[in-house]
């Protein structure tokens, strides 16, 4: 329990901008491994170079601290700068939000505050087109009906306007003025609210009770304005802050995603462990060998190389330990510190290329791709599963009324306005008619049963006087707008809601008034909504519209048949169908319903269940009037996109709440399914409704499993993508079957359904999940986590625009061989490295058996030995890089040849001067002298060639192997047989929908 106005929780401040100081500071202090910018479970690995540079101060080391400290310093600096830059960008973005000014009512005065200083309990004023600075409870609105419109596009990508209602009991209808709000402050309101939860909508918002009325009032999601949402079409509103800062729904949702680690980083970490083991064993072996060698006193301390007093007096154990550490320092370069920087910088620069990509630029909204974090760039190329919503993603979410059917008679377009409903123009449009009264009832139902509001373009007098005035409809669902517009076409125009009265202009241009008594809002579980209205004559009517599956069981069974035919046909054509039903209520019935509804609304516990129960009871025994068909057009180029995704070997999952037929035809239209795709169905239709459905499901699963997995010969190459298979499979599953699979009944034998199902899914190029409840959509996603163990689930939300919002799940290519796939190149490179190291050393070693390599008999020393090895190393590595370079742009030429030239130049330069700041002039003229020897040249060339030889050989073998594969694989053409996409907006769906 908190008192409003009390300095409750923390001052809202998104803390992320502190991160840089934390990170960088710590990184520079070498105090925390996480802060080198890579943080992970085995982050202590990163400490080893740090440790070694520290050790060098303590231990007598073979390399100077500068030698290993300088690269480390460079690495840390670069990482810190990169992290700092990214954090600075984030910080700037935070600041934009945190420092933006908002108006807060304090002590009856309007005060301007930075939004980060909002405290819980502050009353905040938000103007049109502003975003809410924190989670607010809606208190007052400038609009007369106490509502406001909100778009949550930046939260969930849905651009619809949502209608928010204020708690009518507390706010006078006089509209919101600052004074009124101030009055409210003096109310002693108690706010009882649950602790913050991340779910955006599954929320039980706080309940408010005002002590003056001593009646508890509970609030629903329609009273809660979420941070990040934008106020639309309402001049201003007032709200009281309930969650601020890190406790807002948005921040809670954001937190979960902050730890993103890409597969590359994970595998690097795994490899690093191997290298660490190698390093440790190397150091151990070398220490042991050192003491074995030193056990001979001639070797330990010959007369020419005596130890200092200090060295002699040190404890043997301590000496062994410091020797071990010295070897660690000496070999610490096996841990590729620079690789981190390279990887980080690659990602960082790669993110620039993403944002520079012209193809990603949207002319309409004038924005290109935005990269929020560069952590997961490379993962984008490894995405294998794309989960997409249908409505609003594949389709435009702009609905158009197509046709309707009343009592089984079809009505389509072009009914002349003048002569009313009864006439249609042209014989083609004539499908038979229903009774006039039924038609009118149907249209009235369309006009009344919705939550559409009207926004007046001009407030002057455009209410009834000008029927042509461009009133725009606003609703949370575009379907409703389409239906209201559809009704308008047939002569019934909805004129708006005024003081609980809905006004309708009928075909005869008369205005009818209906008192809106109750709205039983739409929810995805019920899949229907109802209104209860009172006509001017006092008749009480309940209109209900909803999905056929939820309407048909609630109406007289004999009415269904004719309408069902239409509904099914429309669904096959890819239209969204809704059924409309009505019921007359007696006053007595209404009183009961009214009472129950109010009780349920006031309930503090189990409110949802109680409401659901009342709705269930109310919406029963109705009469079916008709059905509507609304078209949701496909997005431009969605077919091309799906095609491209398929071609890239990705598997697309479409999750939709639509009925199967609708979804299926949409999927055909957007090329998710091809005519050649063999469809596997796991829907209520095939499984059946009987109690035997579990057995049937079992049968089906086994059958599909057999067809897809056991019978298909395993492809030889592990890297083969699914599209090379001759037959493509698509899977259709509906919500009820999915829940049967995911939540099997007590029967333990069915618990492995899940894994079988997943295996089937992996083989399918496309999966359509229809009739999904929103909760189920969320369930599908973690389904894949067991498969993604190796790489871990990582969800990206690319809200590039309203056009494509997607979750992208990164996964390794094939879960059975991914271990091999990762380790093979690693082992290859490691062994290659070992081989090259042996070649470098022993090549020069044998060469130095006679160290007089110049033509004047003078001899070379140990520094020349090292210089030759290092020169060979530099050239080999650079040339190997050149061998692996596929595209040689001028930059590649510049960098590769440039680094070789720079190496030579620098070696001359470094050796050409007696450096006053160096204690020892070891390299003086060593490089130049080395180059005067012909033998050295020959040896260097030979050793480089030997080192590169395995790589070249491998290329040749690969190319030979490929050719042999090609020749044996010529006959079945491996190119995908998908036809290219034709423009799809005009395509009819019906010719493709009869495959099964």
């Amino acid at each position, binding site marked *: 329990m908190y008192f409003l106005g009390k300095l409750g929780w923390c001052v809202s401040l998104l803390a992320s901008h502190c991160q840089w100081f934390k990170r960088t500071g710590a990184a520079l202090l070498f105090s925390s491994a996480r802060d080198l910018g890579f943080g992970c479970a085995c982050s202590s690995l990163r400490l080893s170079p740090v440790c070694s540079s520290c050790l060098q101060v303590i231990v007598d080391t073979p390399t100077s601290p500068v030698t290993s400290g300088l690269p480390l310093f460079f690495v840390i600096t670069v990482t810190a700068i990169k992290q700092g830059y990214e954090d600075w960008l984030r910080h700037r973005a935070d600041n934009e939000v945190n420092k933006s000014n908002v108006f807060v009512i304090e002590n009856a005065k309007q005060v301007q505050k930075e939004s980060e200083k909002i405290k819980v309990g502050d009353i905040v004023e938000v103007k049109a087109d502003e975003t809410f600075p924190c989670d607010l409870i809606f208190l007052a609105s400038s609009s007369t009906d106490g509502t406001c419109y909100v778009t949550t596009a930046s939260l969930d990508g849905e651009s619809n306007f949502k209608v928010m209602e204020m708690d009518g009991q507390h706010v006078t209808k006089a509209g919101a003025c600052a004074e009124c709000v101030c009055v409210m402050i003096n109310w002693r309101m108690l706010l009882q609210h649950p602790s913050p939860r991340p779910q955006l909508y599954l929320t039980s918002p706080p309940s408010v009770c005002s002590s003056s009325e001593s009646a508890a009032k509970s609030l629903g999601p329609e009273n809660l304005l979420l941070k990040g949402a934008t106020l639309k079409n309402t001049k201003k509103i007032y709200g009281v802050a309930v969650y601020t800062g890190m406790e807002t729904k948005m921040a809670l949702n954001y937190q979960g995603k902050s730890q993103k680690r890409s597969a590359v980083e994970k595998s690097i970490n795994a490899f690093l462990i191997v290298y660490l083991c190698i390093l440790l064993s190397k150091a151990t072996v070398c220490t042991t060998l050192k003491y074995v060698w030193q056990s001979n006193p001639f070797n330990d301390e010959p007369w*020419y190389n005596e130890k200092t007093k200090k060295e002699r007096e040190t404890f043997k154990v301590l000496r062994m330990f410091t020797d071990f550490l010295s070897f660690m320092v000496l070999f610490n370069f096996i841990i590729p510190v620079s690789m981190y920087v390279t990887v980080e910088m690659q990602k960082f620069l790669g993110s620039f290329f993403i944002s520079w990509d012209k193809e990603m630029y949207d002319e309409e909204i004038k924005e290109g791709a935005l990269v929020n974090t560069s952590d997961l760039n490379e993962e984008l190329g490894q995405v294998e599963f794309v989960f997409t919503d249908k409505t609003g993603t594949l389709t435009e979410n702009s609905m158009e009324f197509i046709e309707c059917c009343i009592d089984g008679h079809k009505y389509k377009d072009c009914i002349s306005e003048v002569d009313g409903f009864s006439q249609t123009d042209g014989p083609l449009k004539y499908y038979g008619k229903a009774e006039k009264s039924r038609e009118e009832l149907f249209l009235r139902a369309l006009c009344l049963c919705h939550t559409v509001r009207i926004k007046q373009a001009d407030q002057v007098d455009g209410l009834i006087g000008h029927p042509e005035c461009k009133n725009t409809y606003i609703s949370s669902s575009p379907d409703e707008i389409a239906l209201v517009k559809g009704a308008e076409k047939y002569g019934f125009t909805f004129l708006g809601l005024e003081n609980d009265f809905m006004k309708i202009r009928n075909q005869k241009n008369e205005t009818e008034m209906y008192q809106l008594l109750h709205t039983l809002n739409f929810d995805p579980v019920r899949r229907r909504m109802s209104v209860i209205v009172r006509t001017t004559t006092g008749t009480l009517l309940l209109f209900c519209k909803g999905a056929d599956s939820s309407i048909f069981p609630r109406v007289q069974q004999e009415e269904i048949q004719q309408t069902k035919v239409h509904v099914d046909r429309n669904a096959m054509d890819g239209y969204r169908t809704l059924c409309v039903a009505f019921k007359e209520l007696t006053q007595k019935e209404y009183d009961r319903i009214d009472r129950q509804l109010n009780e349920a609304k006031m309930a503090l516990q189990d409110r949802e269940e109680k409401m659901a129960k009342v709705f269930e009871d109310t919406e029963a025994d109705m009469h079916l009037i008709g059905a509507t068909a609304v078209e949701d057009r496909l997005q431009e180029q969605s077919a091309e996109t799906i095609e491209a995704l398929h071609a890239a070997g990705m598997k697309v999952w479409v999750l939709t709440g639509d009925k199967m037929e609708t979804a299926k035809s949409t999927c055909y239209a957007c090329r998710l399914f091809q005519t050649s795709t063999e469809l596997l169905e796991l829907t209520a239709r095939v499984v059946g409704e009987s109690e035997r459905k579990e057995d049937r499901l079992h049968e089906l699963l086994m059958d599909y499993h057999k067809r897809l997995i056991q019978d298909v010969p395993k492809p030889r190459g592990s890297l083969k993508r699914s599209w090379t298979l001759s037959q493509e499979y698509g899977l259709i599953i509906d919500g009820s079957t999915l829940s049967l699979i995911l939540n099997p009944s007590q029967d333990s034998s069915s618990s492995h359904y899940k894994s079988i199902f997943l295996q089937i899914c992996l083989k399918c190029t496309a999966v359509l999940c229809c009739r999904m409840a929103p909760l189920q959509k969320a369930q599908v996603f973690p389904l894949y986590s067991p498969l993604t163990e190796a790489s871990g689930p990582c969800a990206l939300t690319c809200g590039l625009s309203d056009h494509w919002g997607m979750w992208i799940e990164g996964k390794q290519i094939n879960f059975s061989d991914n271990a091999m796939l990762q380790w093979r190149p690693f082992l290859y490179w490691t062994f290659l490295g070992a081989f090259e190291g042996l070649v470098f050393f022993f090549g020069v070693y044998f060469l130095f058996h006679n160290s007089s390599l110049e033509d004047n008999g003078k001899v070379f020393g140990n520094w020349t030995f090292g210089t030759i090895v290092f020169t060979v190393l530099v050239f080999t590595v650079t040339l190997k890089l050149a061998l692996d370079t596929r595209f*040689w742009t001028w930059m590649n030429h510049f960098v590769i040849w440039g680094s070789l030239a720079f190496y030579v130049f620098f070696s001359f330069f470094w050796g050409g001067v007696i450096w006053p700041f160096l204690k020892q002039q070891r390299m003086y003229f060593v490089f130049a*002298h080395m180059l005067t020897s012909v033998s050295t040249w*020959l040896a260097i060339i030979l050793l480089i060639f030997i080192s590169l030889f395995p790589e070249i050989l491998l290329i*040749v073998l690969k*190319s030979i192997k490929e050719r042999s594969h090609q020749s044996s694989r*010529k006959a079945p053409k491996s190119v995908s047989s998908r036809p290219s996409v034709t423009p799809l907006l005009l395509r009819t769906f019906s010719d493709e929908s009869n495959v099964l």
Partner: protein
Amino acid sequence: MAVNYSAKEEADGHPAGGGPGGGAAAGGGGAVKTRKPDNTAFKQQRLPAWQPILTAGTVLPAFFIIGLIFIPIGIGIFVTSNNIREYEIDYTGIEPSSPCNKCLNVSWDSTPPCTCTINFTLEHSFESNVFMYYGLSNFYQNHRRYVKSRDDSQLNGDNSSLLNPSKECEPYRTNEDKPIAPCGAIANSMFNDTLELYHVENDTRTAIPLIKKGIAWWTDKNVKFRNPTGDGNNLTALFQGTTKPVNWPKPVYMLDSEPDNNGFINEDFIVWMRTAALPTFRKLYRLIERKSNLQPTLQAGKYSLDITYNYPVHSFDGRKRMILSTISWMGGKNPFLGIAYITVGSICFFLGVVLLIIHHKYGNRNTSADIPN
């Protein structure tokens, strides 16, 4: 090598006309900053690229060519190396029969110095200039502690370092509170045997003139190593305040009678200071120049080597050698490089043949399969 020059521009299907349009948009948007990405080849990743494709067809000829180049080079080096005359005497004196056996346990300060003479016979004459090396075995001049133990600024004539040598020189930094010049383990253990070569003809010994200059790197002698500077050229005065290395019989300014080969710029000293890479090494000791075109530098016959045996190696199981060698363009005798070249060239050639056969087998099948297409 088959190469593909592809301007990726065309491959990606970007209309070439897009460039000016994008430029105009960016240029026109001076007032209103457009967020439209620039249509530059770099930003759109359309830089013209060269795509070398390494295939069997292109690499296999390279194998042959490399094989054909490497084998002759290898043979050339091998022959050259074999033509080098080299004669080596181990004068450590391990074997009791050896004349130097008496000196085996010599110590640094034994006076008078132990001397011994070894007679040997050259079977073949040495035609060109002969280089005389001394060789040491099991001597770890590459030991980390040893390599560090020097002060290069002292050796470069820096006066402050002369009197205050670097700590790296420990435990050969000071002796009796006087700084050691030159300090450090390397200098301290300088090789100090004297080798003299005589040609023995009818029991008369003719000394063969050994040139002691020109054995060190020019840059070392002239730049890296310098005597301390000061008033006058008297080295004794310049080295005032320092002491000789512990194991040396005489101070550094008495290494040689000639002033340009004395002190730090003594070439024997410089050669010793260039530490060897491996525990078995040789260092240039003296040059024997060919006097006339008619006579070989060392004709076949009997020779005797007089050794002033000062340098103890027995304590660490070491060996001492004297090596006489001629030099070719590739340096001293070393069969490794020639053999390596021949081996690599042969492998290359052999693999080229094998792979060509395999390649042809598949290639033929491939072309036959191509025909019906």
